[in-house]
């Protein structure tokens, strides 16, 4: 365990650690460009050079290993000049693009220049021109003039995506990042190169020119597109989601997320149905009316109460949060005990790889199982739905993967209560439609396929008429005589920790930056 001094402060670290890691332990900031904790060390940018007593030349802190008795200086006059010089070289051919560059506001080059240099230019020459706005792949566009050749993207494609689709060509000041001729940067994780590019060389095509980053508000949440449940940041502006970015989570997704999840938010932006509707079978024909939530709930209650619980079918989905699933479970344990339970959701045999993507394209299958484990309910697959002996069907969620025959069966049921969000076949068939909240409008938790419980945080303010599935279940349950009373998802989670063994001992507020593993090892 070598002990070293950095700027006069002593620290002891494990053998094999680099000076950069030791400095991080002390809270001392050493600027870098090409270093990334999730990638191999390249040491080509030379920004992290520090003075040591073990070498006459400054050494790159990201690469140099600590030695016992080493003395490191990060603020000496030579290092300040060195950083200034490194930045000067990087900026020599850098185009004056800040006003049109998406990276402005989150650009490492801007931040480092302002903090460590702020010196005027000494260039009295034309700058070198390279490829500008070159589309590399379905989601990535390259501006080679802005590139500082840190090779983070090259290393990412080699080491993480395991498809070497990028490389540096030419030499000297003509060096450029490029794909192989005729090939595209189209691996399923290509969007991460945009995240790790420290400048605006690689930018996202779907986010290009959409919003300036300083307008964005951020919330941490979970991507719902598959059972991996990558921790993400949802960036919004004016109450609309503008992009997803991965958030580091050592247990779940490391530093990355897949492109499918990254662009998925675009699917949820349009076609939203936010008002409750009721189908009226009047003398003049069947007409659909917008109505107040209470009236719709009354209609739904009437339909559910009219017949015996055995003639009621409930379709649940692994898109319900743990809290929603708990309340629905209470409903099925109480007033609707004996109802036929079906399980919908999206496909469970999608593309899977050994990097991040899972075949199960539903976010909370494991959570649903865990929450219902004590109820002994599993539910038949929705594809096996039969309208025989069914007067009312209560459908949670509207993104079920079903064929036409199932839809036809569902439409045979006289009362169809749908809790959904979009204009689709389920909305069309609903006799009572109750608008639900999307995952980014909810607070709650998901459990991923490994049993890691993570919190969703509300990033978008929902329409006042859109309520969560659990709220509707609670209201229907109350109307049917159950004693259910929860004010917030937090309250439900607290009830869950005592009611469901798999969640015992987890604290809702502790589900913060460090995701929590359920005690599912026992299950």
């Amino acid at each position: 365990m070598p002990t070293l001094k950095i700027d006069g402060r002593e620290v002891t670290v494990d053998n094999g650690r680099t000076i950069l890691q030791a400095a991080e332990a002390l809270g001392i900031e050493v600027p870098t460009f090409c270093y990334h904790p999730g990638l191999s060390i390249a040491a080509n940018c030379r920004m992290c050079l520090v003075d040591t007593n073990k070498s006459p030349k400054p050494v790159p802190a990201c690469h140099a290993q600590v030695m016992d008795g080493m003395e490191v200086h990060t603020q000496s006059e030579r290092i300040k000049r060195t950083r200034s010089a490194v930045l000067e070289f990087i900026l020599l051919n850098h185009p004056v693009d800040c006003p049109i560059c998406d990276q402005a506001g989150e650009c490492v080059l801007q931040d480092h220049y302002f903090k460590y240099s702020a010196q005027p230019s000494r260039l009295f020459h034309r700058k070198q021109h390279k490829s500008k706005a070159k589309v590399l792949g379905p989601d990535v566009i390259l501006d080679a003039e802005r590139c500082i050749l840190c090779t983070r993207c090259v290393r990412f494609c080699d080491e993480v995506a395991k498809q070497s689709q990028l490389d540096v060509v030419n030499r000297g000041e003509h060096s450029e990042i490029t794909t192989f001729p005729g090939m595209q940067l189209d691996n399923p994780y290509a969007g991460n190169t945009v995240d790790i590019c420290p400048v605006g060389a690689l930018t996202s095509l779907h986010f290009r020119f959409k919003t300036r980053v300083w307008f964005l508000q951020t919330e941490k949440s979970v991507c719902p597109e598959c059972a991996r449940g990558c921790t993400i940041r949802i960036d919004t502006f004016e109450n609309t989601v503008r992009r997803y970015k991965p958030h580091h989570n050592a247990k779940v997704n490391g530093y990355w997320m897949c492109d499918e999840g990254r662009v998925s938010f675009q699917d949820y932006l349009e076609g939203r149905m936010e008002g409750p509707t009721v189908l009226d079978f009047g003398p003049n024909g069947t007409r659909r009316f917008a109505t107040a939530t209470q009236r719709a709930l009354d209609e739904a209650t009437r339909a559910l109460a009219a017949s015996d619980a055995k003639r009621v079918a409930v379709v649940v989905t692994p898109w319900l949060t743990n809290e929603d699933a708990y309340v629905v479970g209470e409903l099925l344990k109480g007033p609707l005990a004996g109802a036929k339970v079906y399980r919908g959701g999206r496909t469970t045999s999608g593309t899977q790889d050994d990097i991040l993507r899972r075949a199960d394209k539903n976010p909370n299958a494991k959570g649903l199982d865990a929450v219902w484990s004590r109820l002994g309910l599993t539910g038949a697959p929705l594809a096996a739905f039969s309208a025989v002996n069914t007067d009312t069907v209560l459908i949670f969620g509207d993104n079920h993967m079903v064929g036409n025959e199932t839809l036809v069966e569902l439409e045979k049921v006289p009362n169809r209560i749908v809790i959904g969000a979009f204009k689709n076949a389920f909305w069309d068939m609903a006799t009572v439609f109750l608008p639900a909240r999307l995952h980014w409008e909810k607070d709650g938790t998901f459990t991923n396929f490994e049993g890691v419980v993570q919190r969703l945080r509300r990033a978008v303010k929902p329409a006042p008429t859109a309520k969560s599935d659990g709220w509707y279940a609670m209201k229907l349950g109350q109307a049917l005589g159950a004693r259910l009373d929860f004010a917030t998802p937090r309250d439900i989670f607290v009830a869950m920790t005592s009611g469901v063994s798999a969640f015992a001992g987890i604290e809702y507020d502790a589900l913060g930056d460090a995701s929590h593993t359920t005690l599912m090892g026992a299950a």
Partner: protein
Amino acid sequence: MGGHAPAPASKAGPSGPPPLAKSTRLMRADAEPLKHEAEHNIFHSELMTVAMGPSHPATHGTMQMMLTLDGETIVDVDVKIGYLHRGFEKMSEVATYNQVIPYADRLNYVSPLCNNVGWVLAVEKALGLDVPDRCKYIRMIVCEMSRITDHLTAIGAGALELGGFTPFLYAIQGREALWDVVEELTGARMTTSYTRVGGLRHDLYADFEKRYRETRAEVEKLLRDCDKLLTKNRIFVDRMANVGVIGAEDAIDFGFTGPCLRSTGVDYDVRVAAPYLHYSRVQFDVPVGHKGDNYDRYLCRMEEIHQSFKIIDQCLAQMEPGPINSPDWNVVLPPKEQVYNTIEGMIAHFKLIMEGVKVPAGEVYGYTEAGNGELGFYIVSDGSGRPWRVKCRPPCFAIMQGLKPMIVGSSMADIIPTFDTINMIGGEIDR
């Protein structure tokens, strides 16, 4: 609280006049009622509450005085301010340090350049930044010009309310002449926003000295005329002398600064006690009164105008050509040709505008001598480009606290000259 309705006059009932209320018009609790009153009891007087303001033709600035009167004598006054509160301090918490400058303009709006200079000096104190000499001289010049406009306004308004329309117009004409120069220099008469953290918006224009000398001659002539009309004027002196008196000890206890404090005989001027910019390199006198009444405050202001001109003359003589901004691109915007043509200038400009000048975490109290006294800015910084807390210490806030002892016991007619010589500026006191 809303105003009280005036107490209804007592009515004569069917059996004759109601029992007479004992007269309570007393200046001191132990004073004897006047002889003729006690004998004849002809005045059925009760105390009357009059709301003076917030909208009143004779008060300059919006504030309300709830006067409790016994006839014409003021028994009590409740001074209510806050009618011009615009949340300067709250807004400053989301603005960068340079974005606060237009807000500061609107504090003491008759001397905006004093506020500009005061604010950036406080920020530069927190930064530990020194600005070039030429910048310091120019800041002194504009600060003194603003002080002159402030005093001219006070003198003119004071004369106006006492019935002297002519000296008011002379003073305003002088103010206009000065504001013309200020407009030529900064682009605006009142919302100047001329200073920047680390320097100024731009240098003096080519004809500045010539225009200044013309204006100075004009203002001094107008001031001589005002002086002839007012200073030995029987009516003016009668209404101003021995009215609104406050003693030195009380003034200090209330936190008075500026001409109001100096009129009581206390020789305190921030420019002398703690010189900032290059005030230690110029010679000027600080006029001091001895009575602490309205007349002394008027005289102090009159003389200070002459002294301010003296300071400006010396600054123009001592000034050398040179840069006006600090060369540090972490504080001052790069020149535009570098911003548009080099990436370094572009980045520096971008970071300065988007994130602001980063002031190290800590707290400072920066203070200067503004027209009304010590104008202070207490800045708490959290290390970012936006202040965590800004407290503006307005000079007339402390002075208005002392209004009550100045006017209680005097006649209602004395309120106006007292209030005028105090020179409360609504924007400054309410922020």
